[in-house]
């Protein structure tokens, strides 16, 4: 069908009768309010100037998804990696898969990446029942105002966040299953005339271990323990234009594969508790001008307590009881900022802001039996595991953005900014995105961006050890990206899409041959994603995608090799069908292609694998009352392995086999 835009003609702007005026005004108000709600809740994602995926918890539950981390693996181009402490991180389109901080996790408007690793493993097991939706942007740029994603940004909106479209006022839930998995939790919302209060809390655990025997770097065999205990709560209070939010998250996992690549004692733990409080006040200054003031504080710590090496002789020292270490570092981040939003220029939405952040390690402990005859000693001053006194950073982010509606078919989004830090180089960044909708059903997007990731405290200040050595001279990782997207609306609820991307990543932070972090060469990553999402019928929900990623690593000497630890082929299929009014059948099929290794690693590529999950649910569509679901994950009991570096675990990190669990809940 040929499509034309009816230009508003003055000749049509006839005088309105008295009775028509309120209707017309009311109609206009409805349109404006719907558009605003759609933008606030990202219901109109296809028209946003990003390559964006939105995962709604109602759909995720029907697929059989239990946690935030599981949900992220449904997003095109995203794979998961881990390290020796099972400190997991999502990998976006192959962007530096050996480094953390490639993506930013934002929960209810707050960045929860920690300062030590720049990671957010402690939130990946957040129960899906606490989440309303997950918005994932692939590519760099400021999807959330003032937050600069590098390879991607994950925006989690919990039920404690504002959600005007949610029917239920709360949910209580419980789950249990294989591997000693159990969990309980709930959320609830209360409101008065001017205020709103939301609360959530949960506690969960499992006793998972590797599905197969593993052999460590010392030749020991055994099962690595991958269990965890996780609890937390969140609170959100709104009064008029004032918001106060806080969250406590206590995550403790087993020492997994050991921080020195040797199977640790079974009781070894790695803890990463954190809390944060944020406040926001929106002050209307004029009809089209708002001032937004924000302040926050976050405190988190990392504590590793384990026998890192078994009985033996290392570097000429015999440890008759093994080598034990108890390491702790606590960091604090305080932040404050102000932003202006201005809509007074027709067809423009302008925002400008400044935000300053202070990160510092405020406490550190290093206990170890370095001299076996002395037993555990305090080396916090004489031989710390991280230079905590140097781990300080002040950052200032200054930005200006404009969303311009050029005409009914075309919109342009621009962001320019400057990031200045006290311990690394400053950098200007920017992003431009053009959205063009030539017909009702076709949408084209073209995006270019320039972004950076600043090194974590671990990468800069870890003291020399077998694990890693920090490098205070590191500078930021840098990405220049080009992305294109074509979306075809196949129906009101069904969209097909094709994305192409080209990423030039330079100054990548990796460990060199001496295990020291370095800014190392350039990665060129390119590829495409095809996806289909929505509803084929009114009874089903579908997410289907194929991602192709091809990357090359060029080192400082000009040697080129394939990008390591990245699957060139990813296929994700999630489908749920309402068999009857009460019964819903769902499932996920996930294919992860083979992954190459570094050129110096003589092992074969890590083999491809695929997993199939099946979920059968009762009343999963309800918004009031009971629901229940049983899920079998990885029915074929495929051993899911994440890649390990050379000279560590020769058979990589096997992290999951078949499991099952049930959950039930009551929505009210």
């Amino acid at each position: 069908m040929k499509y034309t835009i009816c230009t508003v003609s003055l000749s049509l702007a006839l005088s309105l009768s008295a009775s028509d005026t309120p209707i017309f005004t009311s109609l206009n108000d409805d349109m404006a309010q719907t558009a605003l709600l759609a933008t606030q809740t990202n219901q109109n994602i296809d028209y946003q100037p990003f390559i964006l995926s939105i995962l709604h918890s109602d759909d995720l539950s029907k697929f059989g998804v239990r946690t935030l981390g599981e949900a992220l693996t449904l997003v095109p181009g995203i794979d998961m990696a881990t390290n020796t402490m099972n400190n997991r991180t999502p990998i976006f389109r192959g962007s530096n898969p050996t480094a953390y901080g490639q993506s930013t996790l934002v929960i209810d408007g707050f960045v929860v990446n920690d300062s030590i690793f720049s990671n957010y493993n402690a939130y990946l097991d957040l129960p899906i029942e606490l989440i309303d939706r997950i918005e994932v942007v692939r590519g760099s740029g400021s999807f959330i105002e003032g937050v600069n994603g590098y390879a991607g940004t994950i925006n989690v909106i919990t039920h404690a966040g504002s959600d005007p479209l949610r029917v239920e006022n709360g949910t209580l839930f419980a789950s249990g299953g294989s591997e000693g998995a159990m969990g309980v939790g709930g959320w609830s919302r209360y409101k008065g005339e001017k205020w709103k209060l939301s609360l959530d809390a949960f506690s969960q655990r499992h006793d998972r271990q590797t599905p197969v025997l593993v052999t460590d770097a010392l030749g020991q065999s055994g099962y690595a323990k991958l269990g965890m205990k996780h609890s937390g709560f969140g609170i959100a209070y709104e009064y008029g234009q004032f918001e106060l939010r806080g969250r406590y998250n206590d995550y403790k996992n087993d020492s997994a594969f050991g921080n020195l690549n040797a199977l640790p004692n079974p009781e070894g733990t790695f803890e990463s508790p954190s809390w944060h409080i944020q406040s926001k006040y929106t002050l209307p200054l004029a009809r089209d001008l708002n001032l937004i003031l924000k302040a926050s504080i976050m405190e988190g710590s990392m504590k590793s307590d384990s026998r890192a090496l078994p009985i033996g002789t290392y570097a000429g020292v015999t440890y008759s009881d093994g080598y034990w270490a108890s390491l702790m570092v606590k960091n604090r981040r305080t932040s404050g900022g102000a932003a202006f939003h201005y809509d007074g220029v027709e067809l423009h939405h302008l925002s400008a802001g400044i935000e300053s952040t202070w990160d510092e390690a405020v406490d550190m402990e290093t206990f170890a039996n370095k001299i076996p005859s002395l037993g555990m000693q305090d080396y916090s001053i004489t031989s710390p595991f991280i230079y905590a006194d140097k781990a300080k950073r002040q950052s200032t982010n200054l930005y200006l953005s404009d969303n311009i509606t050029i005409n009914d078919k075309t919109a342009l989004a621009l962001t320019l900014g400057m990031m200045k830090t006290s311990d690394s180089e400053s950098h200007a960044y920017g992003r431009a995105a053009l959205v063009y909708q030539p017909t009702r059903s076709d949408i084209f997007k073209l995006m270019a961006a320039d972004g950076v990731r600043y090194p974590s405290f671990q990468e800069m200040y870890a003291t020399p050890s077998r694990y890693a050595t920090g490098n205070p001279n590191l500078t930021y990782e840098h990405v220049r990206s080009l992305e294109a997207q074509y979306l075809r609306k196949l129906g009101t609820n069904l969209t097909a899409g094709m994305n192409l991307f080209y990423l030039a990543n330079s100054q990548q932070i990796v460990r060199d041959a001496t295990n020291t972090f370095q800014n190392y060469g350039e990665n060129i990553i390119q590829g495409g994603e095809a996806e289909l999402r929505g509803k084929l019928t009114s009874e089903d929900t579908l997410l289907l995608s194929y991602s192709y990623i091809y990357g090359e690593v060029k080192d400082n000497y000009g040697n080129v090799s394939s990008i390591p630890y990245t699957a060139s082929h990813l296929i994700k299929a999630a489908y749920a069908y309402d068999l009857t009014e009460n019964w819903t059948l769902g499932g996920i099929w996930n294919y992860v292609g083979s992954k190459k290794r570094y050129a110096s690693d003589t092992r074969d590529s890590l083999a491809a694998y695929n997993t199939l999950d099946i979920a059968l649910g009762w009343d999963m569509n309800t918004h009031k009352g009971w629901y229940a679901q049983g899920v079998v994950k990885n029915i074929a009991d495929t051993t899911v392995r994440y890649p390990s570096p050379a000279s560590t675990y020769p058979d990589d990190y096997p992290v999951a086999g078949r499991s099952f669990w049930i959950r039930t809940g009551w929505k009210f």
Partner: protein
Amino acid sequence: MEILIRLFAVLMIGFLAARAEDPLLLNTHIRMIPKIMALDTQALSHSSSGKAILGVVYDDNRKNSAKKVADEINADYDGNIGTLPFVAIAISVDELMLRHDIAFVYLVEMRNSSVRRVAPWGILNSVPAFSYNSENLDLGILGAIAIERSTVIYLNKNVLKEGKFRFNDTLFQIARFVE
């Protein structure tokens, strides 16, 4: 504006449970469709009762879905939009073909074959037909409301001419035409 958004959200909340359609889109339709009907200057000419009838049209087994839409419209508007008295009713495609008192129709999700029956009926009887699914514009339906970068009222230009519809010109100020 914040208060308006909250009010709008509150009005929508009662209608969100267990629905296959996109709730924001459907509730936007529930709010806007009667107002568009009120801008039809011929709305009262189809009925001798002095009350315009808004038909929420369904096929197959979607009667409940259509009835919920009609009930919600009636609850929201209490029988009047501006100076226009009206009532919303759920009506099947088969029944619609036999009726001559319907002033305006809104199609919930339905088969293309059903849409193809309603579209010429609307043109023949000068009854404006809007649809939940904007793809139905391609099948000869007069209008649809879509949520894109902004909220868009689409009107099919050819159908508008063919059906001799008479709307208050203010509607044309904010609509986009397709042909």
